[in-house]
């Protein structure tokens, strides 16, 4: 803070901001009477779910909203400049120079045909007008500043050679090129893995201290808010419902919506002492009253094994010589063994490239293993048995917007599995669709409508209904709640738990979100580079993580409690390694050690020696 006070950078001050969009029927108000200040060196977070107006606010500060279709009233001041009355030309000069922005998608916000260094240098030249050679030196200095290892060598590399986390660092370097007074970060870590998220948040904080800039942080993740923000503004459908210091709001939220939002945030460690999953308490957004979560009875029936996976491996060749000799392979899944009992939820956790989704696809028979076997209810999954076994294994996908065929009505989509297996008559199918829709909490009247008319949460419920049509015994949920808003996420998790109670379903819950996993699972398998490094009862894994990777994963989860902010110096800048290996790579023989009953840990290999 002391550095910030000595610099003369201006702060941001917004007051009485109203934004409306023009549509066919006139003007729709999207932000109403918003006001807050950010002092230099301070971080303010705008929190809200989709449609709350948080991103629109950020764009209005940058003057990036379409002029013809938007009406902005109020005042946005940066220092003593009134941004709303600036000409487009002045605004353009301001953007990048005094206000910089980083976006959610580091994959698409860089130009793929230009090398990384030049993209940074381009921005420096555009704003400071220095020579190319100077700009190059400055760009390398910035790359070092955002902790890109061997910056001088990576100057000439292209975006596709950088991982997601590294690209976000490049974006930050570009944003910082002109030492802006205000940095707007719009969900900068949402698309990143949890360990990388921790590193990027850390980096933003560190740079803020050095530069003394104001940061406007836009996010839906309460954990991230608790981690970075000094003050927060909670928005709900265009209105500010609560505002104050982060500590104050987390300790004593007054508005029902804030309470609902906070209660829906899974807290890591809130489940110690219980072995079974626990539904979320659902708050009513209007009244603020909580419906207490039902206490669940145990559903696990160890006598019936639904799914058995033995020594499963799958490798894909990525590089071949012209003679067909494979010189590089992705070892996507390597010697994975696991079992799932009736009524049990096994969570598979890991980061990108860990092979967790591939494992899910192998279990459903969508991919064929290179080695090993999958047995569903005692029957082996092979290409000739896949069709009949698919009745017992169903899958829920991550993105509810792409997992429903846009050309099928909801009713048809739900009964599609029945059609594929030629079950039930047309009238029976309609009845089944109606009852399944009711079962997942939707109105049976929507069966005639198309998926694009529904929100993400509703679509995910439709997907759940579809998986239930064949009365399966195992459901693979591949990041099924990751794309949903927090409050919707809580509802869908509760729905899955209810269904498990009712039908004794076995779930394979694939996720990177440790906090949700803690809520929902009986057992947890941690995957890293295609291998299971630790597997065991959920309580054991979370209370006593043994493998260094599991520990790193749990430590990286943002804690939604500002008083328990992490010691930032602990976070290392390590990248997630790639599962691509040379063609002659020999898979090391792994041995597992039993820490406690059912809790197995891979013997730590030499690569973890720190």
């Amino acid at each position: 803070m002391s550095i910030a006070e000595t610099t003369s950078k201006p702060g941001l001050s917004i007051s009485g901001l109203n934004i409306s969009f023009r549509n066919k029927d006139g003007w729709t108000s999207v932000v109403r009477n918003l006001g807050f200040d950010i002092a230099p060196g301070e971080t303010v977070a705008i929190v809200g779910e989709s449609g709350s107006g948080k991103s629109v606010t950020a764009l209005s500060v940058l003057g990036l909203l379409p002029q013809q279709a938007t009406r902005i009233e109020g005042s946005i001041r940066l220092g003593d400049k009134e941004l709303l009355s600036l000409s487009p030309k002045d605004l353009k000069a301001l953007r990048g120079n005094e206000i910089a922005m980083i976006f959610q998608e580091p994959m698409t916000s860089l130009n793929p045909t230009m090398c990384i260094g030049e993209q940074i240098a381009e921005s420096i030249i555009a704003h400071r007008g220095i020579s190319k050679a100077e700009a190059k030196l400055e760009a390398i200095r910035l790359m070092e500043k955002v902790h890109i290892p061997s910056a001088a060598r990576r100057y000439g590399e292209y975006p596709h050679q950088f991982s997601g986390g590294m690209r976000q660092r490049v974006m930050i370097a570009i944003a910082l090129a002109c030492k802006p007074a205000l940095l707007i970060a719009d969900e900068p870590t949402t698309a990143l893995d949890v360990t990388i998220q921790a590193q990027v948040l850390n980096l933003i904080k560190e740079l803020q201290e050095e530069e003394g800039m104001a940061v406007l942080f836009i996010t839906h993740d309460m954990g991230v808010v608790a981690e970075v923000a000094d003050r927060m503004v909670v928005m709900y459908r265009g209105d500010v419902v609560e505002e104050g210091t982060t500590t104050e709001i987390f300790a004593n939220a007054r508005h029902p919506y804030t309470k609902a939002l906070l209660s829906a945030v899974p807290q890591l460690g809130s489940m110690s002492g219980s072995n079974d999953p626990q539904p979320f308490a659902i708050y009513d957004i209007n009244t603020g009253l909580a419906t207490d979560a039902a206490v669940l009875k145990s559903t696990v029936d160890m006598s019936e094994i639904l799914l058995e996976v033995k020594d499963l491996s799958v490798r894909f060749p990525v590089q071949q010589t012209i003679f067909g000799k494979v010189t590089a392979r992705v070892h996507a899944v390597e010697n994975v063994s696991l079992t799932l009992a009736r009524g049990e939820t096994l969570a598979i956790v890991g980061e990108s490239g860990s092979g967790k989704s591939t494992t899910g696809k192998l279990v459903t028979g969508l991919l064929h293993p290179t080695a090993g076997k999958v047995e569903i209810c005692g029957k082996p999954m092979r290409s000739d048995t896949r069709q009949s076994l698919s009745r017992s294994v169903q899958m829920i996908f991550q993105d509810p917007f792409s997992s429903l065929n846009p050309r099928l009505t909801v009713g048809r989509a739900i009964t599609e599995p029945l059609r594929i297996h030629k079950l039930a008559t047309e009238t029976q199918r309609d009845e089944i669709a109606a009852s399944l829709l009711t079962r997942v909490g939707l109105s049976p009247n929507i069966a005639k409508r198309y998926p694009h008319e529904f929100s993400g949460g509703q679509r995910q419920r439709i997907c759940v209904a579809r998986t239930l049509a064949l009365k399966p015994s195992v459901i693979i949920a591949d990041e099924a709640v990751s794309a949903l808003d927090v409050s919707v996420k809580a509802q869908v998790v509760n729905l899955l738990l209810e269904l498990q109670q009712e039908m004794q379903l076995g779930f394979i819950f694939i996720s990177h979100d440790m906090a949700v996993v803690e809520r929902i699972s009986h057992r947890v398998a941690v995957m890293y580079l295609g291998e299971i490094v630790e597997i065991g009862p959920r309580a054991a894994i979370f209370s006593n993580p043994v493998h260094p990777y599991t520990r790193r994963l749990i430590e990286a989860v943002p804690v939604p409690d500002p008083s328990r902010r992490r010691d930032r110096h602990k976070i290392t800048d390590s990248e997630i390694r790639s599962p691509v290996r040379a063609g002659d790579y020999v898979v090391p023989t792994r041995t597992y050690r039993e820490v406690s009953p059912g809790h197995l840990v891979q013997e730590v290999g030499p690569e973890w020696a720190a």
Partner: protein
Amino acid sequence: MTGTFSKFKSDQIPAYLLALLLIVSLLAPVLPLQDPLLMDTASRFAGPSAQHLFGQDEFGRDILVRLIFAIRNSLIVAFAAAVLAGIFGTALGVLAGYSRGLTEMLAMRFIDIVLCFPPLLLAMLAVTLYGPGPVTLIPVLAIVFVPSFTRVAHASVLSVRSQDYVEAVRSMGASNARVMFSTILPNIAGPLIVQFSFTVAVTVVLESGLSFLGLGVLPPAPSLGLMIGTGRATLAQAPMLLVWPCAALTAMILILNAFCDDLRDRLDPKSSKIRGQ
């Protein structure tokens, strides 16, 4: 949906015009029209009259009737060729895009070979070998346009097959044929329909070109290309003999393109038109 067709809308004009074209061409043999081949050498190059609205040509035949029959011949050849090309081309493209590997390699390389031949050259080659007339013209034009359908289908399948809903149907245990034809095909219909419209329009032009060169429809049967060819010779005496078939050809292609453009918008469930907004 019910309200969409009850009210007249300007964007439906191409649909009405195309319907008119199709009805007139289909019913041409039964309509009370003159014989398009009936000559009346006494009134060669006669101007418009009550009996002959567009006048008469160099043999005294009724120009309007000949135009109608020429359009009919053009559309029959064009639609037949486009439908054949569409069916085979799409099937090949979907198969190649969905199965990948060797099938894809063989199918796409075959397409590349066909693409190596300029369409007009290929058509001329076949016509020289098998003689002119619609029976050679239709299969030849179909082969010429198979690659464009295959390419469009292949490219669209590649983007659609990576969508989760395709994966979802597969995980439900659907057979490959079902995934390809009841899940993927409806979702790539948009670009294919546009391709179909384009093919019909281009086939009309190509057919006219071949007829113009004397390799397509044989005289005395009426054809727009033939009419343009003979009209050229008498340009100084009767310019309208050239203008009418040219105008008919242009109008036909414009109508086809406008109609198919509109159709694509309507077929997309996300488009606002279907919701009647």
